[in-house]
């Protein structure tokens, strides 16, 4: 028998979904701005969601049969839709206000060490706070801190950054099996931990790095190797006896710096990969390259990878009725970021690289290949002699 589809209206857009779908998944079916952000929900992990409260929405009408509104804001990731439900997300100021509050709560104990965090550039919390947070904090106390712990040879746990989304716990339960870590203590001193300093050894445990929305669980084989936006994502595969072997390589020149699972447009892993693929196969010859990964144009990872990227069409003049708006700075006229192939240059990029002198490279004292990458001219921001 064919199931009757349920009609649900989210921000005045109506969509038909199967019974049992949550509001968040219905919104993802619509796509675009009406999708509530999710920090803890992961559609591929059963039981996840409901904890971070960033996906709160207002249910203005419960269903066609019972059109009363729900008294509180509900977590859209865990609330199933009813036929005729009316949901307000970005159209309701109370929802945006509550979300702003949640972002503030998530950030008060977050270290904001993005400049040294490996997750920066692909961090869900970074995106969330740019989109929904405020620029300043009202928190003026000492932040909660923890020691960094190496849990096993591949994964480092930096609990200070954790937002306790429980995703890694569900991953260890449902993907890896034989879970050896969990949440200990309660309240604001709750922490992800193994009981008495165990090492996580399951052959699928590396996936916790991919599901982690922040930089709390990081890849020890990639730590401080490079910023993600300097590496070039490439889809590749190999014949793996344990997993499907479909991965994404993050390359710099011919070096594979990092291997991760492929993620879909919601930042969720498509196929879980095993530890061997993730941590051991770091040579191009191990993989069959499929081609560059398509990324969202707005992603910082996209910056500087592909030459001849089509510049976006300017709509100002048509929208403004022919009048030319007075812009303080036109980003497209001064930024040449997309015209430089970072793979061509050796060493970190500097301002010089983008100002015509494409071969100019900075000098990085921590670069192990210093001899190769060093710049005799010393075009370095730390050097006052720089032309």
């Amino acid at each position, binding site marked *: 028998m064919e199931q009757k589809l349920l009609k649900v209206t989210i921000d005045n857009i109506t969509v038909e979904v199967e019974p049992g779908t949550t509001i968040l998944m219905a919104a993802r079916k619509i796509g675009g701005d009406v999708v509530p952000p999710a920090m803890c929900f992961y559609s591929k992990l059963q039981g996840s*969601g*409901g*904890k*971070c*409260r*960033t996906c*709160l929405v207002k249910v203005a009408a419960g269903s066609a049969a019972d059109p009363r509104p729900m008294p*509180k*804001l509900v*977590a859209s990731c*865990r609330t199933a839709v009813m036929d005729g439900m009316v949901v307000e997300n970005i159209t309701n100021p109370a929802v945006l*206000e*509550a979300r702003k*509050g*949640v972002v*503030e*709560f*998530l950030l*008060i*104990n977050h270290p904001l060490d993005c400049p040294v965090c490996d997750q920066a550039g692909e961090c869900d919390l970074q995106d969330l706070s740019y989109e929904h947070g405020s620029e300043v904090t*009202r*928190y003026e*106390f000492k932040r909660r801190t923890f020691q960094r712990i190496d849990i096993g040879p591949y994964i480092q746990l930096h609990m200070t950054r954790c*937002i*306790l989304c*429980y995703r890694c716990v569900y991953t260890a339960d449902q993907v890896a099996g034989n879970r050896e870590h*969990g*949440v200990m*203590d*309660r*309240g*604001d*001193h*709750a922490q992800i931990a193994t009981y008495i300093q165990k090492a996580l050894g399951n052959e699928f445990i590396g996936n916790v790095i991919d599901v982690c929305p922040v930089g709390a669980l990081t890849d020890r084989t990639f730590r401080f190797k490079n910023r993600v936006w300097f590496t070039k994502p490439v889809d590749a595969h190999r014949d793996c006896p344990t997993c499907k072997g479909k991965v994404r390589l993050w390359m710099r020149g011919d070096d594979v710096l990092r291997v991760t699972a492929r993620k879909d447009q919601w930042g969720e892993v498509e196929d879980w990969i095993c530890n061997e693929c993730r941590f051991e196969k770091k040579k191009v010859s191990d993989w069959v390259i499929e081609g560059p990964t398509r990324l969202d144009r707005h992603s910082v990872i996209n910056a500087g990878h592909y030459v001849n990227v089509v510049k976006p069409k300017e709509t100002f003049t048509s929208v403004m009725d022919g009048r030319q708006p007075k812009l303080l700075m036109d980003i497209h006229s001064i930024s040449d970021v997309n015209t430089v192939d970072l793979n061509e240059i050796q060493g970190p990029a500097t301002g010089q690289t983008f100002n015509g002198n494409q071969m100019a490279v900075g000098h990085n004292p921590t670069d192990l290949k210093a001899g190769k990458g060093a710049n005799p001219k010393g075009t370095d921001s730390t050097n006052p002699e720089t032309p």
Partner: protein
Amino acid sequence: MGRKLLLDKAHIEGIRYYDTYRKNGGYAAVEKAFKMSPADIVEEVKKSGLRGRGGAGFPTGLKWSFLAKPEGVPRYLVCNADESEPGTFKDRYLMEFIPHLLIEGLIISSYALGSHRTYIYIRGEYAWIVDILEQAIAEANQAGWLGKNILNSGFDCQIYVQRGAGAYICGEETALIESLEGKRGNPRIKPPFPAVKGLWDSPTVVNNVETLAAVVPIMNIGAEEYSKIGIGKSTGTKLISACGNLNKPGVYEIDMTISVEEFIFSDEYCGGIANGKRLKACIPGGSSVPILPANLLLKTAKGETRMMNYESLADGGFATGTMMGSGGFIVLDEDQCVVRHTFSLARFYRHESCGQCSPCREGTGWMEKILNNIENGKGKMSDIDLLWDIQRKIEGNTICPLGDAAAWPVAAAIRHFRDEFEWHVTHPDEAQIRNFGLAHYADPIKPAEAIAGI
């Protein structure tokens, strides 16, 4: 003298033991109940108008009728004896002195709901009460009130006592169920409600100790008569655990027809404020409900006398009213500092937050730190508005009511005692030496002023 239904036999020596309890008319309600059908008992409880005594005041009969009854799936009754609300100690008294009343209520309720395995989840700190309950259950077993084929009705029932490990959050019904299953006591996300998917994914009813004990008098005197006691929708009797600066703190059974003033000042109940001091403020329903200053406590914003029942205490909403809650009646005299008191509560909720959802986990700690600053003379005027904003962003945005419970006391303290908070900020040194005192908090207020609230 109000009528007593729960504690009427509490004074009898040896009532804790089966023989004395039975001789004084105990277990008559079970005999009566087993002659009725389970559906009739549920109907009877519905008719009695009994409301949950744990805090929310949800009608018990209605809760029972929501219980799903799918074929082949066991149903469970769980007694919530995880009484951890600061200021509430009524269940302890009931279980310590008349354990058989609870056992009797549990047998009737189990029969009504079809629960063959019934659990008492008791807080770990009540270690000695576990022994008392275990003994009472053993006695009831021996006398044939528990076990197989009770009173030849073909109904089997057994009661088990499970100790918690000292977490306030495990008093929330879904966290209690998680803890009972042996997991970390994190509240579940509702729906599904326990009535559909509770303990081990089976339909479950979780009720407070006092609620289940109240089923016994309902059976004994009949729903009709029970519903006549009290006023309106507040039927029956309620145990109030009074504490704070009172001449006679303790557990009192009231029939919800008396006024708050009578309860505090009459010799039959609390006997007035200790040491001849004056009343400053009161939290009438356990630490989670909003605090009220003396003027709003004794009279509602409309100028009526405030009564000790669900409706009258909630009169005026949160702007000028409060809640019946669990009946933890905390009285503050003129020497008490509301800021310090609020700080102490904020510290409690910070400590007891389970850490699952972000507003509660981060917000409770933040509020505690700000209140600590204000209390210790390091506060700023903007901190008061910040506190207000934080509590507003916690309230209603959390998984379980602990977020609300943490937000309400702070909100009410700022709403009614803002002067005192401001005085702490403007007079940091003086605030270390003396308290703000009674100030104007007992002055009669003009109705219009009170209704405006904040």
